[in-house]
């Protein structure tokens, strides 16, 4: 390591004073900051009796085995989406009867499906999709046959992961 670099200058006694300044900063952080200028309450209220009602609502959901609270407009959108898919299937059958050259689901690019779902406000979490899809109709053998390559997983994470913290990895369980 070079002792100094002629291109960069530092103030006189910078390193001699560094420790004092660092420890002053650390003790400042350890002391509670002055918050006297802040309001004591933030102004949020809840409807009267809310906390009593919420226990009942949660217990009802768990006893009935419901998986997720879905806001009304989201439930409506799921029905709307199901209806749209049904109409498309009927049209597809009619189309197939009338034309020999047909377009199948496999002809759609994944990006087109993604765009359609996003453009139409049908963004659903994985959990909501799992709740909406009938497990019996899932062909797990197809997933097994097309095993994910490590490169594909890395590409997906590169494109879709903002922060590695989002993975919620349990580092203790990872083998290094």
């Amino acid at each position, binding site marked *: 390591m070079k002792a100094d670099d002629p291109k960069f200058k530092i103030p006189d006694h910078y390193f001699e004073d560094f420790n004092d300044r660092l420890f002053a900063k650390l003790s*400042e*952080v*350890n002391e509670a*900051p*002055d*918050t006297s*200028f*802040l*309001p004591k*309450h*933030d*102004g*949020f*209220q*809840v*409807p009267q009796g*809310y*906390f009593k009602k*919420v*226990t009942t*609502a*949660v*217990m009802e*959901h*768990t*006893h009935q085995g*419901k*998986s*997720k*609270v879905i*806001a009304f407009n989201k439930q409506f959108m799921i029905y709307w989406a199901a209806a749209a898919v049904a109409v498309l299937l009927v049209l597809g059958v009619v189309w197939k009867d009338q034309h020999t050259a047909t377009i199948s689901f496999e002809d759609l690019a994944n990006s087109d499906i993604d765009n359609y779902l*996003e453009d139409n*406000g049908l*963004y659903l*979490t994985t959990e909501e999709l799992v709740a909406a899809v009938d497990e019996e109709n899932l062909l797990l053998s197809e997933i097994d046959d097309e095993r994910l390559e490590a490169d594909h997983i890395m590409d997906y994470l590169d494109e879709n992961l903002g922060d590695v913290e989002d993975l*919620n990895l349990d580092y*203790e369980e990872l083998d290094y």
Partner: protein
Amino acid sequence: MSIEEPLVLALQEQATQAKAFEELVNTYKERLYWHIRRIVLDHNDADDVLQNTFIKVYKSINGFKGDSKLYSWLYRIATNEALTFLKKRSKERGVSEETYQQHLVANLVSDVYFEGDTIQLKLQKALATLPQKQKLVFNMKYFQEMKYEAISEALGTSVGGLKASYHLAVQKIQSYLTTHD
């Protein structure tokens, strides 16, 4: 044995699960509600996220290994649910999370469940300008009066890092409040 342990054991036994879960809901609903409410701001959204948090807890209680404290596990689930909710909402509207935050604060003026005065509304505007982590730390420390150790367990961040985040948040809020009308 910590005071949480009998509750965790009761939650994992089929015969005692329902009663124990009700006890868990009653013990933590208010704390988790306020934690979530300060993230999503709107009462109805906070209600949805709170219920989904408890449903997730109910479904995963058998997988709770007891490596962390029960309350910090609950806070982690609640925080993830609330932040995922915000991400999803901003994506649905095709705007950035920052823009969506500003939109939520603007809605507070007409929110029947927000009775904040001018300074309280201004504080929410200041909070909307902070990075999410600083905002979480500020709310948990200042309004929920949690100890750094408890926040550290809930957010998985070192106590030193939390102290620095809290100081920065307070400084930025003060600066916002003095430079904005």
